[in-house]
Each structure stands twice: as structure tokens, then as C-alpha cells.
């Protein structure tokens, strides 16, 4: 894959807020039909990185490249127009709107002419339902249903289907599985695989190593705003990745500590002292 031009690439991207460096020399790339998993504990700089990728913020230094060409996003709309779609944790954001209406927010299909152009509810519903069903969510069959009535996984799927329908080439998924149960999460992971199969470049942000390993081709671990590790699928085990994310202190050490404590304290785990 090294000879193909990455769809999206970061070269030594820095982001500082005044004297505070939040991101430090981040270099990443993601290819067509590939899932890049961005792992990191809370506060590692994942959210700041997303905001730079989707145009909400601009990097202080460094370059963002799309298809090998330097780009600078003027805002979220600009990034979206270039094919970068971001889906946030809770997916569908308009809980009291119908599936059809929320699918087409801002780009509503209309019929009629002049001042009497009306929102084409039937067409919007049909397209939205078809787009979601193509992703394997066959339970959604009525475009008039309110988004708030869908399950968390269905909302994520709807948001991803929407992004793909409107021509996204890079899909940024911000902790899509964090708030979901096991079944729902598996659902979303299937959708991620489907997006990948369709040739999208996916950036999957998570701190759940299991979920990352299920879909990822490429992994990057973020610690305190820097890329601490960058490796391919199969290069590292789950334990190694978890240890990396925790910042060096190995999970095994921690477990050994707790086990040792329990042996000497009648099987009670240590009390947490805040």
C-alpha cells in the first residue's frame, strides 16, 4: 500500500492554545478502503485532532494533505465539501426530527416551482430508508419515524449512511461505540466494515481496543498529544496496545499489584483513595 497516495495525510501537525501544546508533530495517513484506528486515553488529544481534521480548528503548524495536495479547511462546511464527514458519539443529532428530514438537513429535496417549492417528503423518506437499508439496517423501513426513537447503534448507522450518501471519502468516527452495548457495538462495527468495503478511508477513534482490533488495518496510539506508536494489524497483541494506551504502566503490573494486595487482605481489593 506504500505506493498509493493516501486520501488524507497529516504531516507534523502541531496545535497549540497559547503556551499549551495539545498536539505535537502528528503524522498520520489513511488510504482508500482502509481503517485507521486512533487509540488514546482521555485527554490524549483525540478530540483536538478531530477538530483539526474536520475544519473546526486549523493546525498551528504542519500540513494536511488530501490526495497528496495541501489543503486548508476554512470551516466544517469546507471540510465536508471536500468529502470529510464526521460522525459524533451520539450520531443522529436531531432527535425530534423524522429520519427523512434529518437525513436531508440543509440539502432538502424539493418539488414544485418558484416560491411554491415544497419539501419532497416522499422522496426524502425513500432515499433515506434505502441508504440505511443498503448498510444492512433493515429494521428501519419508515422515513417518518423520529430519530430519537432509534437505538444508539441505529442512529450511528443512519449518520454513517448519510455521510456515505452525500459523497464522503473520509469518514471520521468519534467514539462511535463508546455509549453502546455489546450487540449495538457489533452492529456499528459491521457498518464500519461495509464503509471500508465501499472504498472509504475511515478514521476510527476509540479507547476500546477490542473494537479497534475488530475493524482496524492500521493503528496509531496517541499519548499526551503525540503519536506514541504507529503499527499495522497483527503487529501487536491486545495487551501490548492496552499497555501503550495506559502510558507505559502495564496492565499486567497493575493486575499483579491488585492480586498481591488481595492475597494479604483476605481477598479484598484495595480501597480507592482519591
Amino acid at each position: 500500500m506504500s505506493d498509493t497516495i493516501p486520501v488524507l495525510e497529516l504531516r507534523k501537525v502541531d496545535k497549540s492554545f497559547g503556551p499549551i501544546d495539545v498536539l505535537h508533530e502528528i503524522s498520520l495517513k489513511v488510504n482508500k478502503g482502509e481503517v485507521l484506528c486512533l487509540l488514546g486515553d482521555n485527554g490524549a488529544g483525540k478530540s483536538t485532532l478531530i477538530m483539526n481534521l474536520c475544519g473546526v480548528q486549523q493546525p498551528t503548524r504542519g500540513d494536511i494533505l488530501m490526495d497528496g495536495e495541501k489543503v486548508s479547511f476554512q470551516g466544517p462546511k469546507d471540510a465536508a465539501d471536500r468529502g470529510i464527514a464526521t460522525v459524533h458519539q451520539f450520531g443522529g443529532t436531531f432527535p425530534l426530527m423524522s429520519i427523512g428530514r434529518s437525513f436531508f438537513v440543509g440539502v432538502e429535496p424539493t418539488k414544485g416551482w418558484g416560491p411554491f417549492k415544497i419539501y419532497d417528503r416522499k422522496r426524502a423518506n425513500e432515499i433515506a430508508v434505502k441508504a440505511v437499508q443498503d448498510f444492512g439496517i433493515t429494521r428501519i423501513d419508515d422515513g417518518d419515524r423520529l430519530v430519537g426513537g432509534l437505538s444508539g447503534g441505529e442512529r450511528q448507522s443512519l449518520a454513517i449512511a448519510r455521510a456515505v450518501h452525500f459523497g464522503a471519502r473520509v469518514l471520521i468516527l468519534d467514539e462511535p461505540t463508546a455509549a453502546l452495548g455489546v450487540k449495538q457495538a457489533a452492529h456499528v462495527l459491521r457498518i464500519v466494515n461495509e464503509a471500508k468495503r465501499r472504498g472509504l478511508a475511515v478514521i476510527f477513534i476509540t479507547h476500546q481496543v477490542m473494537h479497534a482490533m475488530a475493524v482496524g488495518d492500521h493503528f496509531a496510539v496517541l499519548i499526551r498529544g503525540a503519536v506514541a506508536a504507529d503499527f499495522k494489524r497483527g503487529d501487536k497483541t491486545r495487551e501490548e496496545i492496552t499497555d501503550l494506551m495506559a502510558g507505559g504502566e502495564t496492565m499486567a503490573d497493575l493486575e499483579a499489584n491488585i492480586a498481591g494486595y488481595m492475597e494479604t487482605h483476605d481477598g479484598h481489593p484495595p480501597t480507592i483513595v482519591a
Partner: protein
Amino acid sequence: MKILGSFLRRPEAGAILSLLAVIAFYVFFGGVHLERLVKAASWVNFAANLGVVAIPVGLLMIGGEIDISIGAMIPAGSMTTAILSGYYGLPIEVGMLGALSIGVLVGLVNGLLAVRTAVPSLIITLGTLVGMQGVVLSGSVLLTGNTSVSLEAPYWAKFMFGQLMGGTHQVIILWWIAFALIFAFVLHKSRFGNWIYAMGGDKKSARNAGIPTERLTIILFILSATSASFVGMCQAILFNSAQVSGGMSYIFNTIVSVVVGGVLLTGGFGSVLGFFIGTLTFAIVSQGIYFTNIDRNWSNLIIGTMLLLAVAMNETFRILALGYPAVKKKEVRA
């Protein structure tokens, strides 16, 4: 059963049930004379004046904002018309244009402040409410030396804006119906309406989706302030005079009407039909009580109770709306 289910899921369900409940209450406990109530003009006139303001305020609330400056914009509209065309004797067109312009201007100020500052719109419009009261009072005293100005409108203006149809029903009733139809089209059928819902549901996502949320907010504020000055203008033409006081009761009356009509205070939900029926219900409670043998001093208690019941109902229906009809067939998972 299915029809009932989908009826209850609509935003205006609470308003329709409130209306029926109020009428039932008046019939069973008030011994209301229904025929006299239906033929009476008082509550219809009251509803129309209120309704013209309530619809754009409701739209604003769907969009996640609120406007209470309308309380000052009604006297501002009537005084501007009366001062320009009555005191200075300018053609009525000038007075009308002046009244509508002052609505546009104050709405623009409200809107700009709402999008440029982080101050909640309740506080912004509270500021312009009190401010405009001052402007209207001192402006009137400075220019005319009086707090009440008389106006003689020509026939056509009377016919259009201040006619009593059949000697009892104000012509603004027709304006109210026209407003309701236009706004219903805009909110439920046009793209613009979808943007208002999206903006009230989640402003940030709406902006990211490319909706011009700032421009939309400003337009909505202009609509509400201008509709209030329009009502003031119609009142000045109808009554042949204008006073600096009055209009304050409209603030809470519009809010009660649209809330009974099913709007969600945090935005993103509501319908024009709901606002229309909510206004009607409010008018029947407060004016219809004269046609019952209930002491009219109780009317506010009824309004308060109705408001709470309607909101409770609306909450329940909204939860229902989020769920899915249970009667729907179970889909076999692929």
C-alpha cells in the same frame, strides 16, 4: 386505534385535547350557552390579535429562541402609526410603513444581539422590551406632548386593517387565518421550515450541515417584532387612537398559547396548527368565561391549570412520538 396513535404523536394533539377539555368543562360546570359563545365576536377578536403575534413567536421558539419584546412592539406599532398619520397628518401609508419599519428595526437588533453575543434571548428581548417602552413613552411625550394620540384613517385602510365585519368581527381575523396558512406552508412544506426545526434541535449540527443559522435567527426575530407592530398598527386604525400603555399582557398570553400549542421550550418541536388551536383555546378560556355562570375572576386559575395539564400531555405525547407504534408489524431481522 392506529389513527388515534398517530394523532397523539402529532405536536398539536395536546392543544386539540385542551380545547375539547375546556369546552367540556364550560358545558358541564359552567352551563355555557354554546350558541351564544359560537356567535360571539369577543373571543375570536381576542384570539386573532393574539394569534398574529403567537405564530411567529412560536416559530422562534421552535428555533430555540424566545421574544418577549413584542409586549412593547404592539404599542410601538400603534403609536408610530398614530403619531405619523394622526398627529403629523401624513398619509396613512407613511404611518403604516413607519410602524412596520420599527418592527423590522427592533427585530434586527434583537436578532443581531442574539447571534453576536452569548446573552440568552430572554434577557436580550427583556432589555429591548423595557427599552422600547421608554422610547415609545418619551418619544410620544416629546413629539406630541401626550401619551395618547388620535388617528383618522381613510376608508381603504379601515377596510383592510380596521374593519368590523358584520359590525362585530375584526378584520384581523382574516389576517390571522392568512398568517397561519402562510406560516404553516413555510414551516411544514418548505426547506426553510426544516432548517428551523434543525436549528432548534441542535444549532451546532445545523450549522455544520450548512444551514445559515445566524441569518435564520435574525429573520425569525424580525418576523416576530414586525408581526407585533402590525397588530399595533391594526389596533390604531380600528380604534382611531393609540396609547403608549398596553401590550404587556401579550407577552405571557403568547407564551401560554404556543406552549399549550405543543412547542418545546428547548426548541425543535411544534406546529402552526398547534399554535392556532392553542391560541383559540386560550381565548375561549379567558373570554368565553363571560358566557358561563362561573365567576370570571376564576379564569386565570383555569388558564394556569390548563397550561400545566397541556404541558404534561405534550410531554407524554412527545415520549410516545419518540417510540414506535406497537401495532406495527415486527420485522424479521436480516
